Structure formats: C-alpha cells, structure tokens
C-alpha cells in the first residue's frame, strides 16, 4: 500500500476487483434453486432462480484497472482533541459508486462516522493524546451499478504530530533583575518604558512634555516624570520526563508537557526568549532560548522527540551554556519523584539559577487497610513533604498544579510581584 503524500499529490492506485457478497448470495440462491428444480423435477424452482440469474447475467459495468486518488490531511500537526479534516478524492471512477472507509490509527478518534460516499469526501478525525500519531488507513470501495463486483483500494495515510493541549496561562512570573534587552516587562530601573517609575529633578535635555507640573509647583523646582525600563527575560522550561505516574491523559508527564506548552506560549507572547530542557533517563534534550511564534512548536517538538537531540548523561552541569543562560528564570514541571532529578535541581540552585517548581504529582499510593500498607503510604507522603520542604528551604518556590485549573492560579503569588533573583535578599 503506497502511503498518501501529505502534500495532496495524485497517486494512481491499482484496483483489486472481486465478486461482491451480493453477487455471491444471488449466485448461491440461483444454483440452489436450479439444482432443486433439476433433482426434484419441479419447474417452479426454475422460476425462483430466474430473477437472480437475470441480475447476474445483466450486470455489466465499467471496471477500471486503476484510479487516481488524492487524500490530503488539512494539517500535519495538531493539538490534542483538535479536529483534523481529511479530504479524499478519486478520479477515473466515473459511473461507479465510491465508498470511503477510514480506519483511524492508535490514539486517533473518528469525529463522525468513518464512512462516506462520493467521489470527493471529507472525513474528520481528532487525536486524543499527544505524540507521533498515524491517521490510519483509508479503504476505498468501488461498486458497479449492478452491485455485482467490488474494487478495493487501501491507502496508508501519513503520520502527524499531535501536540499536548496547552493549559491556560495569561500571567507571567517576572524576575526582579532583568537582562539589558528590550522587552515588555517593567524593570526596576528607569528607562524608556510607559509605566510610571518616579520623579526627579529636571536637567537640561529632558523633554518638556515629561515635566510634572504639580510636583514642580509643590517643590518650587522643575520636576520630571521617569518611566520604568522595559526588558525581556530568558526563560528555560524544565520538563521532568523521568516518572510518568497517574491516569493516562492526566498523568504527571501529560501535565508537565501541557504546562510547559502553556508557559512557552505565555512567555513568547511577552517577547521573552524561551528554551526547554527535557530531563529523562540517561540524558537531557534541550533547545536554546529563542523568540517568535515558531519557537512554541520547536519547544513542543523537542519535548516530544525523546530519542533524538543532545543526550550526554543525566547532569545539567554538562549542558552547554546556551541551554541554560545565566540569569534565566527556570520553570520546572515535575512530580519530584526521582531523587536524582531533585539533586539536579538543588545543584542548579547552588549555581545561582532562579527557579520555580510546578508540582504535577496528582496521585498517591492506593489506601489499603493493612497496617504495613498504611505505614508505607504515610512514610511515602512524609518523604514527599520532606523533598518539597527542602526545596523551599533552598528558596525554590514549589506550587502544586492539578492540570485542570489554569496555571495562573498556582502561580498567582509569584506573578503579582517580581520573583527575587537567586542570591538577592528578600
């Protein structure tokens, strides 16, 4: 089965013609009736066989050896639960009934019934989970006017990328100390922004329009308004892919990817430079911070490509400087179950990175009545609390996110005022 090209190229397919089930049934009926008539010498059974024989004898239709088929997906990448249209068209099947049946691939749902009739049809599918998915296969059945023969063509559809559905996030955590680069965040220094910063005495060269006449009248000397500088920041999203626990669809990894996608979109909208580091067993994949809309897709693709990219051991010390620029805000999405990952976070903190951890652990060990089980569960919970406590003690905020609420809710205490830079006094 040749695969359908994603760019809607017309491909000629060989048609496998065979007798239809309807024809086989008519043939069975006719033969049974003729045999009955001859064996039992009863002519009325010949009459019974006659309509079926007549239909079989009269049926003559066009049976082309090949047809040209175009199957074009509306996109080669989609978010979870987004509807993707597949436009299918067949040429060279004039005078034949065409039926398309879509058999969706794993993790892809049909939006409507998977069958449609006509030379040109549109089938709708929706991926239900992120990952590299297959649309599936389309079976085209050609039927002649007498419905006695069927031509079959199978087309394998191309693969596509399904991105995690980003969570809602409109607010952003902003560092107290921002690099000297033009952006949209108000810095704690005066500059050419639009947000009021303070008042100072007029010096020659100041614009006349910035004179604050009320303050000048009160103080008896000319005073001018100053405005906050607007800067951008570097944000590195750190997705922990070492442990995937929880219900499929809302597991820790699902939440980590959806949260990272939301954060990437929110910070890139504010013209920040955003990069990503995906931590997993045996290494880390990374993408250097960058700007622009395309960076969202690059970040998500980096998170999805677990086996490709840079992978040199499970230590952030070995990551190049480009992956973790100094002074960057590091937002971590992790269930904090892997002790080595927690150690890596402590190590990063000691190296002076400003971090914020979004805890995506939403499951606990099952509660069982046995004493030892209850004890184990209690110890586990205490261990988890100890891990979070130790991170908070190091000055790393840890917020919990359940995956259903907007990310703005757990981040609210840190989005109202700038996050103090590592090493700064609170």
């Amino acid at each position, binding site marked *: 089965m040749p695969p359908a090209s994603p760019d809607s190229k017309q491909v000629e397919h060989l048609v496998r013609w065979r007798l*239809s*089930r*309807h024809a*086989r*049934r*008519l043939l*069975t*009926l006719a033969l*049974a*009736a003729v045999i*009955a*008539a*001859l064996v*039992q*010498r*009863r*002519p*009325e*059974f*010949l*009459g*019974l*066989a*006659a*309509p*079926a*024989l*007549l*239909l079989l*004898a*009269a049926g003559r239709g066009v049976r082309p050896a090949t047809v040209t088929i175009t199957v074009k997906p*509306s*996109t*080669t*990448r*989609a978010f979870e639960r*987004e*509807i993707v*249209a597949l436009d299918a068209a067949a040429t060279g099947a004039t005078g034949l*009934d065409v*039926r398309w049946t879509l058999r969706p691939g794993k993790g892809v749902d049909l*939006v*409507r*019934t998977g*069958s449609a*009739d006509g030379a040109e049809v*549109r089938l*709708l599918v929706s991926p239900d989970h992120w990952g590299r998915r297959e649309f599936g296969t389309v079976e085209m059945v050609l*039927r002649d*006017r*007498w*419905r006695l023969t069927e031509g079959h063509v199978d087309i394998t559809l191309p693969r596509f990328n399904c991105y995690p559905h980003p969570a809602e996030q409109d607010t952003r955590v902003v560092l107290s100390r921002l690099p000297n680069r033009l952006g949209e965040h108000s810095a704690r220094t005066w500059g050419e922004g639009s947000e009021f910063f303070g008042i100072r005495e007029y010096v020659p060269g100041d614009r006349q329009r910035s004179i604050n006449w009320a303050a000048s009248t009160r103080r008896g000397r000319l005073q001018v308004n100053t405005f906050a500088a607007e800067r951008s920041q570097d944000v590195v999203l750190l997705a922990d892919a070492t442990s995937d626990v929880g219900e499929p669809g809302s597991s820790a990894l699902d939440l980590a990817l959806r949260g990272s996608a939301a954060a990437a979109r929110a910070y890139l909208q504010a013209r920040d430079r955003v990069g990503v580091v995906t931590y997993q067993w045996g290494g880390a994949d990374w993408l250097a911070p960058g700007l622009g809309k395309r960076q969202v897709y690059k970040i998500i693709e980096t998170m999805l490509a677990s086996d490709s990219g840079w992978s040199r051991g499970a230590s952030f010390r070995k990551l190049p400087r480009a992956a973790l620029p100094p002074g960057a805000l590091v937002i971590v999405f992790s269930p904090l179950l892997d002790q080595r990952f927690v150690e890596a976070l402590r190590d990063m903190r000691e190296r002076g990175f400003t971090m914020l951890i979004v805890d995506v652990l939403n499951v606990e060990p099952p509660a069982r009545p046995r004493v030892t089980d209850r004890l184990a569960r209690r110890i586990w919970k205490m261990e988890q609390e100890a891990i979070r406590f130790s991170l908070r003690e190091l000055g790393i905020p840890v917020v919990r996110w359940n995956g259903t609420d907007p990310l703005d809710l757990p981040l609210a205490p840190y989005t109202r005022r700038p996050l103090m830079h590592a090493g700064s006094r609170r």
Partner: protein
Amino acid sequence: MTDQPSLADAGADNARASQSRIGSRLPVLTATAASILLGAACTAWSAIPDQGTTGAAFLLFLIIVCVVGSALRLSLGWIPLSEETYLMGAPLRAWLSFLRFIRVPPWEEGAAITIIWLELLHRSRPWHTAVLGAALIAYLIAVHLAETGSTPAALRPQVPALAVGACLLALGAGAGMLHPAAAGAGSALLRVVAAVAVIVAAGLVLPYVSTRSRR
C-alpha cells in the same frame, strides 16, 4: 497553525456531524429492519404448513440460526473491533470474540439454501414457491442495502431486470402448475426442460419488449 482549518470551522463541522449522525444511520437502520422482517417472513413462509418430520424441524432450526445470525451481523456490524484485547476483562473479550465470530459465516447464503431445501420438502405448490422466491430476492437486496449503507435509489438501474425477473418468476410458477402429459420418469424431466426453454426464451425476449415499449 498556519495550515490548519479554523477552530470555528471545525466546531461547525462537529456540530453538523452530531446532528446528522442519526440521519446518516437511518437508511442502514431501515434496511436492517427490512432484512430482519423479510428473513422472518421467508422462514415462516417456507415452514408452513408444518411437516411434522425431524428433517423439517432440523432445517427450520438451521434457517432460524442463519436468519438470526444475519440479523445480528447487520445490527452489530457498525461496532468497531479493537485489536488490542490483552488488557480487557474476560466479559469484554468474550463480547469482542462474539462480534468477530458473527461477521465470518455466510449467514444469508446458508439461509437461502436451507429455505429452498425446506420448500422442497413440501409437495408442489408453485405460487407459494413464487412468492417465496420474490421474498428471498427482496431479503437479499435488503441485506445488501443494510451492509453497504446504500439507499434504495442505488438499485434503480436494476429495476427493469427485477421487473423482468418477476415475470419469469410468474412464468416458472405457471409452468409448475401444468400437469405432466403422461405418467413416467421422463415426463417430469421433460416438464422441467420445457420450463427452462420457456424461461430462457422469455428472459431473452422480455428485456427487448420492455425497451421497445419505453421507446
């Protein structure tokens, strides 16, 4: 995404899909119901009057099995079969095995053969057999419409052939009503051969006549 249809369009498509879902299944449901009724009618028609023999009872049992199997195949054919059954429970796995099983045997072929066989067990009754023939053809057509999801309009090209077929069916029944010319084994065979000749001749002539009359 630049090459993505807008979400508004997709949402509208989705809404239309949910509205038309029942509408799109209506021809299939109608044809399935028709095939079930016709199957039951053929069974009853071939069974009466009751023969009272073990062979007839067994044949009737086989017919009922085939017709019920066909009805189940058509009614449950739309349920998709999952290929991954490893993690499923035993009841669900048994249900999927059942669904997979009912799609395999040629129920309708079996029903046609056994119905004709049961009809053979009765003494000659030409018009009864002719009605059974018409019902069997209608049953097979209804099954075809139900399994392909087509509307009856798809069979419009076959209407002239079906009309001619009905005439031949009546002709066959008429031939069956003629008494043998003389007693003996050859006489009955001769009657069959004569009926074949008449039916073939009519089959050749009737389409020509019907085409001329339309002109």
